C-alpha cells in the first residue's frame, strides 16, 4: 500500500468527527440485507479506534463494504467512511494475501484482447455451465454471476478504420469495458459528438485503476493513474477537454486521482475532464447545442449509478433525455444495483449482491419500462441479469433519436426506431 502516510493519517483523524448520528446506517445497502456486515458507522469510524499499525486486523467483514459512497454522501460530519473501510480492507488483504481471483477480476485490461480475439469461443465458454462451475470451484467466481461477452473488433480498432470529419478536437476516455465488451457505447459517443461538430480523438489510455482501488490494491491503482495522467495531461495541454462515458472511470480520474491518491498533475486534469452528458448540458445551457430529434415513443427507466451520484453533477443524462420527444423516462427509485464493480462476481458475495439488487428489481417492476438506461457498465450487467430487460447507456438512445431517417420513416418512426434499438427483435 503506497498511499502517502500523511493522507492516511488525515483520513484516520477524520474518523473522530463522527457524531454517531446513524444517517449512514439508514442508507447502507449491504447492512440492510445481511447482518454479516455491521454497517458503515461500526465498520468505518467505530472500528477505526481499534485498528493499530502493526496489529493484525480482526475485522474481515470490512471486505463486505461495496464501496458505493452512499454513507459518505449522507454524513453530516464529513467522515470519509468508505475510504476508512478501503484502508482497512487493504490492510486486511495485505495480511491475508489476495486471492488470484481478485487479481483476475482487476486485470481484465491484460487479457481482454484475448477475449476479443477469440470472442466467439470465449463467449461460448463463459456461458457454458460446466465452465461456470469450474470458475466457481477454482476461482471462487460465482457460477450465476453475469460475466460479460467480448466483442470483436475492439472499439479502438473500429475507430482506427474511420476517417476524420474535422471540427473542434475533443478527447474521449472510453474505458476498458467500452473497448472490449460494449463497443456500441463508444460508437454512439463518437457519432453524437461528430453530429454536433466535434472531431473525436482517442488519446493513449490504460485501465483507470478503479477495479484495483476497489479491491484494496493502492499500488496497482497508483501505477495506472500515473500512466493515464502522463498521456491525458499531454492531451489537455494541447487544448482538448477529456470526456468519459463510464461514470466509474470518470470518478476515478476526476476525483480519486487527486483527492485520495494525490497524484501530481491530477488537479489540472480534473478541471478539463467531464462526463459526456455534463458536457452536453453545458453546451445546451450556453445555447450551443442544437439537436434535432425524431420522435421516440419508448418508456424508459433511468438508474443513477453510485459513482454518478458521487460525482455531484446531478443527473445530466436524465435532463438531456427529456429533450427527446416521445421518450418517457422516469428515475428508478433505488440506490444500489448490488454489483459494486467486481463485488457481485465473487462467490462469497454473490448472494448479497442479489439481495441488494432485489430493491432495484422491485422498483423497476413498479415502473414497468421497456428499456433501462444507466451510465455504469457494472449496473448494466447487473440489471440485465436481474430483469432480463434491454439495458443501454443513455448515449445509445440519444444517438438513435438523432439518426437521420428518410421522410417515409417519419410516419412510422416509433416502430422503426424501436427496431433499430432492438426492442422488437
Amino acid at each position, binding site marked *: 500500500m503506497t498511499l502517502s502516510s500523511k493522507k492516511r493519517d488525515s483520513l484516520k483523524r477524520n474518523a473522530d468527527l463522527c457524531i454517531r448520528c446513524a444517517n449512514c446506517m439508514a442508507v447502507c445497502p449491504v447492512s440492510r440485507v445481511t*447482518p454479516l456486515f455491521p454497517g458503515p458507522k461500526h465498520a468505518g469510524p467505530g472500528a477505526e479506534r481499534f485498528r493499530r499499525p502493526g496489529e493484525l486486523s480482526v475485522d474481515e467483514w470490512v471486505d463486505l463494504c461495496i464501496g458505493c459512497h452512499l454513507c459518505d454522501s449522507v454524513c453530516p460530519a464529513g467522515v470519509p467512511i468508505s475510504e476508512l473501510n478501503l484502508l482497512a480492507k487493504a490492510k486486511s488483504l495485505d495480511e491475508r494475501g489476495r486471492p488470484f481471483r481478485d487479481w483476475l477480476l482487476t486485470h481484465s485490461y491484460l487479457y481482454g484482447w484475448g477475449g476479443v480475439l477469440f470472442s466467439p469461443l470465449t463467449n461460448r465458454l463463459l456461458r457454458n455451465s460446466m465452465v461456470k462451475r469450474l470458475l466457481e470451484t477454482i476461482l471462487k467466481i460465482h457460477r450465476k454471476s453475469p460475466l460479460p461477452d467480448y466483442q470483436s473488433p475492439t472499439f479502438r480498432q473500429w475507430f482506427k478504420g474511420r476517417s476524420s470529419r474535422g471540427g473542434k478536437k475533443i478527447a474521449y476516455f472510453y474505458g476498458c469495458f467500452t473497448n472490449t465488451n460494449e463497443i456500441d457505447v463508444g460508437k454512439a459517443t463518437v457519432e453524437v459528438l461528430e453530429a454536433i461538430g466535434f472531431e473525436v480523438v482517442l488519446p493513449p489510455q490504460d485501465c483507470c485503476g478503479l477495479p484495483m482501488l476497489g479491491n484494496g490494491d493502492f499500488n496497482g491503482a497508483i501505477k495506472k493513474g500515473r500512466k493515464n495522467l502522463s498521456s491525458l495531461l499531454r492531451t489537455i495541454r494541447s487544448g482538448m477537454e477529456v470526456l468519459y462515458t463510464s461514470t466509474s472511470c470518470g470518478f476515478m480520474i476526476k476525483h480519486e486521482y487527486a483527492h485520495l491518491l494525490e497524484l501530481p498533475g491530477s488537479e489540472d486534469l480534473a478541471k478539463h475532464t467531464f462526463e459526456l452528458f455534463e458536457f452536453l448540458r453545458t453546451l445546451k445551457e450556453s445555447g450551443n447545442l442544437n439537436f434535432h430529434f425524431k420522435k421516440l415513443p419508448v418508456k424508459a427507466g433511468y438508474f443513477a449509478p453510485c459513482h454518478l451520484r458521487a460525482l455531484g453533477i446531478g443527473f445530466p443524462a436524465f435532463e438531456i433525455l427529456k429533450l427527446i420527444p416521445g421518450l418517457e423516462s422516469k428515475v428508478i427509485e433505488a440506490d444500489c444495483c448490488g454489483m459494486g464493480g467486481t463485488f457481485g462476481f465473487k462467490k462469497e458475495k454473490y448472494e448479497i449482491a442479489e439481495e441488494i439488487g432485489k430493491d432495484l428489481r422491485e422498483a423497476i417492476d413498479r415502473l414497468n419500462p421497456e428499456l433501462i438506461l444507466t451510465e455504469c457498465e457494472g449496473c448494466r450487467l447487473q440489471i440485465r441479469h436481474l430483469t432480463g430487460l434491454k439495458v443501454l447507456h443513455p448515449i445509445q438512445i440519444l444517438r438513435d433519436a438523432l439518426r437521420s431517417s428518410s421522410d417515409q420513416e417519419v410516419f412510422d418512426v416509433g416502430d422503426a426506431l424501436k427496431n433499430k434499438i432492438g426492442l422488437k427483435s
Partner: protein
Amino acid sequence: MHYDLIIIGMGLSGLMAAKTALDLKKRVLLIGKGMGGLTLFSNTIDILGRIPENLNLKDGLFEWIKDHPEHPYSKIGVEGIEEALSSFISIFPPPYTFQSLNGRNAKLPTAIGTFRPTYLFPSTLAGGTYLKEGNTLIVGFKGFKDFYAGYMAKEFKCRHLTLSLQDEGRSELTATYLSRLMEKEGFRERIGSQIKNALKGESLVAMPPILGLRDPMDAKKHLEAITGVEVFEIPTLPPSLLGMRLFNRFKEYLLERGVDLLIGNKISKVQIKSALCEGIEVYHPPITRFYSADHFILATGRFIGGGLEAERERISETVFHLPVWSTRSQDKWFGENFFDDHPIHGFGISVDPSFRPLDSEGKPIFENVRVIGTILSGHHSLYEGSREGIEISTGYWGAKRLLE
C-alpha cells in the same frame, strides 16, 4: 448552472420549500452537506406540544401566537399553518398517511416507556394512542439494541416478548436489516405466529418501527391478519426508519418534478454583490463548481444540522455569516438540562414577514435570500414540541411568499 431557486439544507423545511417551489413549476436545486436530519427524529409531526390538554390545536395556536409575537408561527398565522400542513399531508396518500387525533394532540408511547404529545402521526403509529396498562404485548428482538421491550413493558405495566433470530448469523441486529426481513411474507408469517401464541388477552401489539421501508401498511395488515390484534410501531433511536420513509417519499416526489438534488455537497463559499447573493461555490476535491440562482433559501437548521456553530465566544451562522440573534449574553449560555428551556435553544436568525434575514437594526440584509426552518429565532422548538410544525409551515410559506 442557473436556477430559479437554490435551497440549502435537506431537512424537513428544505424539502417542504422544494416541494412548494416545484409545485409552482420553478427550476430548483436542493443541496445538502448530508441528507438532512430526518433519520435522527421520530418524525411524528409536532406542532405545539405545550398546548393545555383541554384545548384543540387551533385554539391553542391562537393563544400561543397572541402571547408570542416573535415566534415563527406569528409570521404565518393559524390558517397559514393549516394550509402548510395540508400541503405536507397531500404527498402521503393512504394507506401510509399522516393523521391527527380529532384535531388535538395525541399522546404517543416512546421507547423509554413514557408518553409524549404530538399532532400528526403516520398510520403505523396510530395504535399507540390506545396503549393502556395490560392491553399491549410489546415485541422486541434479541440483539436489536435500540429497543428494549422488557424495559418498556415495565414502565407501561404491560407484558413483553423478545424474539430470538438465532439463525440470522450474527448476534447484533440493525433497524434496516430487521425492516428488510419484515418486508418478506415468510418472515412475517414466522414471527406472526410466535406473537399470536404469546398473546394472553392483549388487544394490541407494539413493535419497533421496522415494518418495512416501502409498504409498511402491507406488513402491518398482514401481521394483524395473523395475530388477530392491532399492530403498531413505537419510534426509537436513530437511524429512524420513519424518517427514511418520509425522506424517500419527498425524494421521489421532487425527482418526478425535476429537482436537481445534490446530497453530500458542502458549500464552500457564497458569492455576494452588495445586497444580492449571486451564487454558491461547492468544493468537491479537487474542483470547485459554481451554481447561480435568482433566489436562495437557507434551511440549514441549528447546531445539530450544522446551520449554527458555537465557538468559544460567539455563535455563528455557517453559510452566509448572518448575525445570530439571542437575548442572552455569553455567561448565560449554560443550562442544566438540554431538553428543558435551555438558553442555547434561543439562538437563531431574525427575519421579516417574507423571511428575509435582518441586521441588528431590523433591516433586510439580502434582497434574494430567505431563511426558514429551525434556524429561525423566536422559538425553543424542542421544549415547545414545535419542531416539525415550524419546519413545514416556514418551508411552505418561505417558498410561497417568495415565488408568488
